[in-house]
């Protein structure tokens, strides 16, 4: 119950920000030259005045900006995200279709980056300034500096085209009618390359933070105390250093959840995955205001939720921090 009240309070506090973001984005997009009918006509290679006028009426673009903004906000109050111009169905349906791919990709990339970053960070910190540290840190730098589309394409050409081990893209074998275990394996095979591609840059960040934070914590007094009372090295590292060093890592998850939603545009395009990032990109290109605002709305909720979970995790890791204060 306390959890629910807390969650409700968080959501309430985020509402004004959400409203400002949506209204701001709406107005910002009015400044972008061209509307969704221009984009449509561009896509089909031309149209005549009759058709264009008819379509403007169809998409309610013949009304004033203020009237459309008021209409949008009024519908939002009723939790109606409106109708998607590109897809011709309610925005909420379009987003729900795209959510599984996004969550799967984000979840797996975030967990992989977190786990691998943590392990590599610990290894580097334990052997600081010796060759494993240098190797891991250099690797981290390479991951951080390489653009993810390049990683994606190279991975695709090496593992899919040259070796033929993994599929080149897509979210599953089409028309295979797979179920149960076979479906799981198939999805897994399709997710390996995109997950790695999306995770590498975040892995590099986690690795650096983990290494630095381990080194910092290991010089603190309570670590010296633990060693002094004769604890084994393993217990010192896991129970005392690691637990405290994890705090900045957990903070980072909350911060990066949003970045990862944005960063997945490239990965989703390269690997032809039907995620929210590509949907957002396409709605900008096609000036599909309702869909874009819907994506922003859902993404914002997602980020708020993740940060809420992160706060709960804080309290778990460090009892001195509690969600109530």
């Amino acid at each position, binding site marked *: 119950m306390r959890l629910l009240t807390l969650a409700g309070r968080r959501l309430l506090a985020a509402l004004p920000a959400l409203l400002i973001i949506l209204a701001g984005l709406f107005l910002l997009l009015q400044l972008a030259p061209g509307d969704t009918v221009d984009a449509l*006509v*561009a896509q089909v290679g031309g*149209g*005549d005045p009759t*058709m264009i006028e008819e*379509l403007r009426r169809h998409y309610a673009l013949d009304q004033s900006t203020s009237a459309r903004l008021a209409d949008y906000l009024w519908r939002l109050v009723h939790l109606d995200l409106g109708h998607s111009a590109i897809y011709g169905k309610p925005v909420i349906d379009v987003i729900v279709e795209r959510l599984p791919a996004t969550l799967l990709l984000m979840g797996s990339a975030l967990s992989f980056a977190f786990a691998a970053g943590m392990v590599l960070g610990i290894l580097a910190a334990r052997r600081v300034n010796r060759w494993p540290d240098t190797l891991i840190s250099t690797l981290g730098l390479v991951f951080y500096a390489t653009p993810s589309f390049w990683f994606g394409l190279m991975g695709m050409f090496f593992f899919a085209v040259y070796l033929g081990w993994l599929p080149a893209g897509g979210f599953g074998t089409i028309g295979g009618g797979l179920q149960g275990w076979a479906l799981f394996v198939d999805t897994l095979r399709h997710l390996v390359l995109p997950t790695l591609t999306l995770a590498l840059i975040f892995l590099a960040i986690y690795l650096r933070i983990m290494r630095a934070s381990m080194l910092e914590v290991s010089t603190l007094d309570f670590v010296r105390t633990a060693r002094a009372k004769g604890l084994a090295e393993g217990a010192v590292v896991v129970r005392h250093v690691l637990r405290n060093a994890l705090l900045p890592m957990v903070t980072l998850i909350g911060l990066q959840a949003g970045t990862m939603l944005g960063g997945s545009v490239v990965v989703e395009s*390269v690997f032809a995955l039907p995620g929210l990032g590509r949907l957002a990109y*396409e709605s900008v290109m096609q000036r599909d205001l309702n869909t874009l605002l819907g994506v922003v709305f859902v993404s914002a909720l997602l980020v708020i939720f993740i940060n809420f979970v992160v706060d709960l995790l804080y309290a778990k890791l460090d009892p001195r921090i509690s969600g109530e204060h």
Partner: protein
Amino acid sequence: MKLTRRELLLSSGALAASAFFPPFAHARAEAGAPRKGGVLNVHLASEQRILNPSLRASTGVYIVTSKIIESLVDLDADGKIVAQLATAWESSKDGKTITFKLREGVKWHDGKPFTAADVQYNALELWKKHLNFSTGLQQNLEAVDTPDAHTAVFRYSRPIPLDLLLRALADLGYVVPRHVFEGTNVLENPANTAPIGTGPYRFVQYERGQYIIAERNPDYWRKDQPYLDRIVWRIITDRSAATAALETGQVQLSAYSQLALADLDRLSKNPDFEVTAKGLEANQFNNTLEFNFRRKEIADIRVRRAIAHAINIPFFIENFLYGQGRPGTGPIPSTSTAFYPKDAKVAYPFDKARAEALLDEAGYRRGAGGVRFTLKLVPIQNGEDVPLFATFIQQSLAAVGIRVEITNFDYAASLAAVYKEHNFDIATGWHQYRGDPAVSTTVWLHSGSPAGSPWTNQYGWKSEKVDTLIEDAASEIDPAKRRELYAEVVREIDEQFPIWFAIERDFYSVVSKKVHNGHNTARWPSSSWHDTWLTA
């Protein structure tokens, strides 16, 4: 109503051809008997909003829907009209009445019969009111009579050339079922994304952002066809990823030049694939340069000619386009044999000295830093080569003392800048020629379209003479006279030079050699694929 001799020959010839040369006869000669079965996977580069070719004319719509929905007529390998849902056609002497005989025994995928009432509804409610390019073409259509269930009589208030109508109907004559659309809001009809037609394949599933699936229609009117079990269109927006999908065998076809030029060049050396412009002749495009006459320097014909003289087109084709193109010779491309003027030539070939002389003569001498004046160039982002050409124009014009500032927008914004706000001095993009100059090309030249319609004349240029020629040609029913009128249009455009058709380009397909009976018509990626088959 009487048939002219020529028209009788034309329509009966087409009938005879389709009766005596069943499509697979050609295949036998090529690679043994067609095999039944298999799945053809096709690359789809961008997702369309709706899959209804009687509401939206676009190659992106055709590449999917033409397998599910059929048009009245189609083209053969030489670009000649062949029967599809219409089996015969004739024009009255005055060119105002066109009669179509429709195929009997054809059923919609939902089991209802296809009749003249369907054609009547499509023509009057969809082709005339909604379909892009068609609303102009059909603007004089007054009524469609249906004396019996398999005859449709189109009545026009002005004569319409039969050749023009038939050629246009191959693209703009797709028929969707009246009983599904009538009485609904056609733009929001669910059948727009779950199409129902008469074609060789039936729609199965559309996963947005991923794929579209169609399967064999067992009740297709061509007996024993089609051969393929299924067609799957995979939506892959990234060009490099699409190439990888071809190389891993995930897809077997990418049509209409949707891959990177470098990849086309590379795949043409791969023995598993064929890179071909054959089978796509029905669509041609030009890299163009549009001039804004509102700018006083541009309004001077000597400046426009100087700009063309300053740009080395053969060099650009050779070094940037992998040799894929020809210097343009005016609004009608050389592949359009029915209309290409015999005396067409490159009007203003590369000649830097001549360009400088013309600019001096116009009174724009080099000022500080050798600059004569500055122009704003808006690239209209149709394809990968547009930014390249924009940069090439910038550098070529710098050499003759014209400074060019490139203003980059995305696709929709660049169209709005040029065609709505007229916020440009020069612009460059693609123009598509669709088999007959009256379908889209003369629309681009005729004056009087309101601002905001892309690919219409928004240049602040108007020529009474060109307008009259275009209007006369659109209702001239004698093909020879029509051809002469268009030759005159070409000469006039070369002379007045409101738009430069700089480079003539073909569309390319990359297709796996497992695909048979592929690219055997002039618009194959947009045709029904009823005779297409795959080797195992």
